[in-house]
């Protein structure tokens, strides 16, 4: 009973944070389950997959209703992510996972640096509105209403091939290493493709559920998903994600970026250290 209550509360927290940032919350759930509750890593990974899907589905309801996400960008880039995820799952054991942890860890640290630079950029959260042949062909440009700034923001994007490759790498990482790829998705859209942060986060939320569903069947049928853990966690995360998706819309993009930076810094350090054999 006590552990169920703890899982429920943790789920609410992970759901709120995940919905705001477009990440799955595995980075919070896995250490709490393994270190605090002494759970086998296998069940912790199964639990975080359920958390990713619940965050994604719970928040996407609100983001679709409020026109915050970009459905075309999501489906277009989802091709890259799902192909990456399948290749990753098939290639498990071919590459050294330590090397990959170091590689992706350092990439996150580099992204942290980029995000901090953007935070202190005098132009602030500038919106890219230029034309690009790929963006026009695939009708990727869109618009959203920013409740914090109380104005409609039309946006375009660039570097679509770069974003596509990054999304493929994000899928590969999730397939090979069993980690969520939400942070990489947000970085691909925000930093590489120059999409505004809010639609980037909302679109990542939609996408990460689809990516996670691809690997969730593996974990479901091999018995990694325990009902006593998944049930309270899923309910908590669904509630949290519903709240978080509303909260995100009234936050200023700059504030969301300030929450995002320490999280990817932590993830980057955690992954790089893991690659060198240190677990934190």
């Amino acid at each position, binding site marked *: 009973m006590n552990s169920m209550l703890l899982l429920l509360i943790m789920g609410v927290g992970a759901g709120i944070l995940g919905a705001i940032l477009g990440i799955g919350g595995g980075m919070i759930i896995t250490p709490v389950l393994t270190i605090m509750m002494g759970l*086998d890593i296998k069940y912790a990974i199964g639990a975080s997959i*359920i958390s990713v*899907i*619940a965050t*994604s*589905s*719970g928040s*996407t*309801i609100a983001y*679709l*209703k409020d*026109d915050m*996400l970009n*459905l*075309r960008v999501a*489906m*277009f880039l*989802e*091709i890259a992510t*799902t*192909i990456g*995820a*399948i290749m990753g*799952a098939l290639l498990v054991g071919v590459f050294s996972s330590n090397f990959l942890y170091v590689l992706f860890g350092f990439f996150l640290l580099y992204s942290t640096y980029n995000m901090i630079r953007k935070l202190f950029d005098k132009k602030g959260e500038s919106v890219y509105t230029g034309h690009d042949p790929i963006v026009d062909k*695939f*009708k990727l*440009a*869109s*618009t959203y209403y920013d409740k914090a700034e109380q104005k409609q923001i039309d946006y375009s994007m660039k570097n679509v091939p770069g974003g596509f490759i990054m999304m493929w790498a994000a899928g590969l990482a999730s397939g090979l290493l069993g980690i969520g790829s939400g942070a990489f998705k947000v970085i691909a859209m925000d930093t590489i493709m120059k999409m505004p942060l809010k639609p980037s986060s909302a679109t990542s939320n*939609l996408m990460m*559920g*689809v990516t*996670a*569903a*691809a*690997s*969730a*069947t*593996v*974990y*479901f*049928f*091999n*018995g990694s*998903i*325990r*009902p*006593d853990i*998944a*049930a*309270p966690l*899923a*309910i908590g995360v*669904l509630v949290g994600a519903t709240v978080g998706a509303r909260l995100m819309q009234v936050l200023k993009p700059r504030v969301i970026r300030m929450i995002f930076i320490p999280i990817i810094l932590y993830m980057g350090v955690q992954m790089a250290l893991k690659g060198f054999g240190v677990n934190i």
Partner: protein
Amino acid sequence: MQSTHDETRKVELVIGKILRVGVITSAIVILIGMALYFMNGAGYPTIVKNGQSMIDFPKRFSDIFAGIIAGKSYAVIMLGVFLLILTPVLRVVVSIYAFYKEHDNLYVIITTIVLIILMIAMFLGYRS
């Protein structure tokens, strides 16, 4: 550009409504399972696995459905969790239909490719 966006709005609202039905359904099934657990317990024996004792639970469809018919709470929860796993798939399927209704053939193709890749991945998962 504006007309493209108006079309997209309609598509998004339809997908949002159907996704909500899917999410609420899976949440209700999980909650029923939890209620059964507090009334009758898990319904499965305790086993020892990797030195840790835990309550067993069903993983295959046949075991899950047999458990639901017997009113076992863990089987009901596993069904709810599986329905939750299907909600992202539902999103992709409804997107295909919605883009089709909007005569956006390019995105019918793109979204169908996503669905096919997703199905292959899920099938590989079931077999492994």
